[in-house]
């Protein structure tokens, strides 16, 4: 057989371990289960993975440099394009960082609006993950069910935000548009509907013996590993650590709502799966409480910055809980029109970094299962 001797830069660097009869294959950049342009160089012994190494950067857009070249306000649309599945969390992290830097007050109603929309967005992100993960495991149907429900969320979010995927809805000191009564009515109809769907998902998919066999005891990522790699979000909660930025570094009005941080101690792919499924319910709970108690008032602060605004000098850090984990914006300002430095801490990036260790010695099909259980969004990794 002819195996091409020359690879590219990364394949050449990825020397086979010298063991006989191994196969070095490129999983990606075009591969159905990497959901985008992630590339993983894998050394296989039969079906077993000896070693692997992710290669990133295929959708790198240099958001951090763009931040240095645009004014504070102009940078807004970029935030929604980092993670297209949970765009509002990135919106929020940027808003929070700059508000902290400049000491901008956010009206109470705006905080509630942010909670409602962000949690709704989280539900849609988890639904998409659920469908895509099962697609990775070879079940084609759940993604259609998930899209069916997600469609409703996108329609709803379209009402205040005006867009369906890469939202740019939050502003310094509030949000760009108020929630209409129609939106709230539709949302309060949607919550019981989605609640009634979840048991069906559980019966149809979660209890399926083939699925359980595919995800249980696969891809152990325990607390220590999470700490060394900086994994957050459902990955660390699947390792039994109740770490959620909404509780650990409370921001906005989350301390007023009653919700649980789902944790599972098994630290395998199934634990991460269950964490996300439970989080959908918790998010619904938060939204329900927020709708019930949302106060009247302005949705945008009077002192909200104008387009040509420049932030005071200093630095600030703000973290929010995204669907994939801890999102941190670090902004530094010299008092000019543009940020001096914007640093994005993306959870998928950190979660993926542990993949090489987690996938060592597993079967190729398990690697797909682990990769899916990390819930990666490639543009977020590459930024």
């Amino acid at each position, binding site marked *: 057989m002819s*195996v091409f001797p020359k690879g590219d830069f990364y394949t050449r660097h990825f020397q086979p371990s010298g063991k006989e009869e191994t196969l070095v*294959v490129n999983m990606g950049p075009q591969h159905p289960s990497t959901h985008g342009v992630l590339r993983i160089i894998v050394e296989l012994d039969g079906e077993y993975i000896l070693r692997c190494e992710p290669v990133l950067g295929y959708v790198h857009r240099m958001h951090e440099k763009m931040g240095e070249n645009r004014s504070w306000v102009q940078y807004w649309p970029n935030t929604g394009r980092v993670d297209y599945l949970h765009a509002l969390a990135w919106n929020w992290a940027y808003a929070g960082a700059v508000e902290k830097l400049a000491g901008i007050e956010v009206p109470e109603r705006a905080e509630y609006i942010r909670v409602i929309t962000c949690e709704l967005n989280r539900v849609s992100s988890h639904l998409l993950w659920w469908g895509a993960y099962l697609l990775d495991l*070879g079940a084609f*149907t759940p993604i*259609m069910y998930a899209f069916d429900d997600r469609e409703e969320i996108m329609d709803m979010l379209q009402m205040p935000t005006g867009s369906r995927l890469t939202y740019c809805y939050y502003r310094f000191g509030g949000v760009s548009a108020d929630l209409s009564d129609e939106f709230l009515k539709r949302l309060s109809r949607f919550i019981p509907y989605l609640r009634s769907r979840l048991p069906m998902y559980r019966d149809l998919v979660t209890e399926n013996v*083939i699925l359980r066999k595919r995800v249980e005891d696969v891809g152990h990522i325990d607390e220590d590993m999470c700490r060394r790699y900086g994994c957050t979000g459902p990955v660390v909660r699947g390792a039994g650590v109740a770490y959620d930025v909404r509780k650990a570094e409370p921001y906005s009005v989350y301390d007023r709502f009653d919700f649980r941080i789902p944790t599972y101690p098994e630290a395998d792919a199934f634990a991460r799966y269950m964490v996300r499924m439970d989080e959908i319910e918790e998010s619904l709970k938060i939204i329900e409480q927020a709708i019930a108690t949302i106060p009247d008032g302005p949705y945008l602060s009077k002192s909200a910055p104008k387009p040509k605004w420049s932030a005071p000098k200093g630095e600030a850090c703000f973290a929010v809980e995204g669907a994939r984990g801890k999102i941190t914006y670090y902004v530094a300002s010299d008092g000019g029109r543009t940020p001096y430095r914007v640093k994005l801490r993306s959870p998928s990036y950190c979660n993926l970094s542990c993949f090489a260790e987690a996938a060592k010695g597993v079967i190729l099909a398990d690697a797909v299962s682990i990769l899916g259980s990390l819930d990666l969004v490639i543009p977020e990794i590459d930024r």
Partner: protein
Amino acid sequence: MNISNWTAPDPFVTTPDMLIRLVVGLLALAAFVGANATILVYVERKVAGFIQRRPGPFEVGPQGILQTIADAAKLIGKQLVTPRGSDGFLFWLAPIVGFLPVFVMFLPIPWGESTYVVQSDVGVLLILAFAGFGVLSLCLAGWASASKWGLIGAARAVAQSVGYEIPLLLAVLAVCFSHGSMDLMAIVKEQGGWPWQWNVATQPLAFFIYFVCALAETNRAPFDLPEAESELTAGFHTEYSGMGFGLFFLAEYANMIVVCSMATALFLGGFQGPAAPGPWWFLLKVYGLLLVMMWMRWTYPRVRFDQLLNLNWKWLLPLATLNLLATAVALKL
């Protein structure tokens, strides 16, 4: 040695009218395989659409019935790409090897009491012998395309079909035992018109094993590991374009019909039906089984490779052996 006065060479064709029957039958089968694949692809997509709460093909023709024809035209019109570094001859031989045996496998199937192409007392064996070529074509395809995904897919295909062929054979043998025949027509005729007179009533375990193995042998989900899309991109047919892929596709659907026809003949009473026996009963049962296969494909996730082999060697094979033994003992008593 004088070979000039051999008169009857081929046991399947001993008289000229049998030859005519064979030729006509082959032509009819060619039409049937092509038409059926088109119908089945359409049905599969509609079933998938129904299961997934969406309309399925909808645009081309009323209710999208012309969709598969348009797809077929597209496949035929596409460029055939031979990948660099591949073994061109074997690369294009593979889909043909995969597709041609299908015709032979259709030959001994008893569609109706008088609707058949050949009647042979080793009909079951004929189908099983040629069914083995499917895996050969997968191997050739995976190996010749000089793609590592293809190679892994081929390796999976071998391990899978070699493994699952054994319980399949044993399950079929149990039925052949109880009828003392390998002639599909005879087996069908010994069964009655009502479900309790079918072999599935006396051999439920054999039927179950046969159906599971048939799923695995035709590489249908949840056992579609050789082409496992999310793991191996497309496994053995990663590199095929146009009709190269089309032939694999056709062969897959034709194989599905064959295994379902065999299941119908062996276990479900073939063309025997409660009211009037005939080919329509046969087709009805075959399509019923095909629908079950589709239903399973759109419902279950894919099993893992080691789980697949475990299922075979630890469960199906011992069960099939026990079932065969039990059948033999029951027959002796």
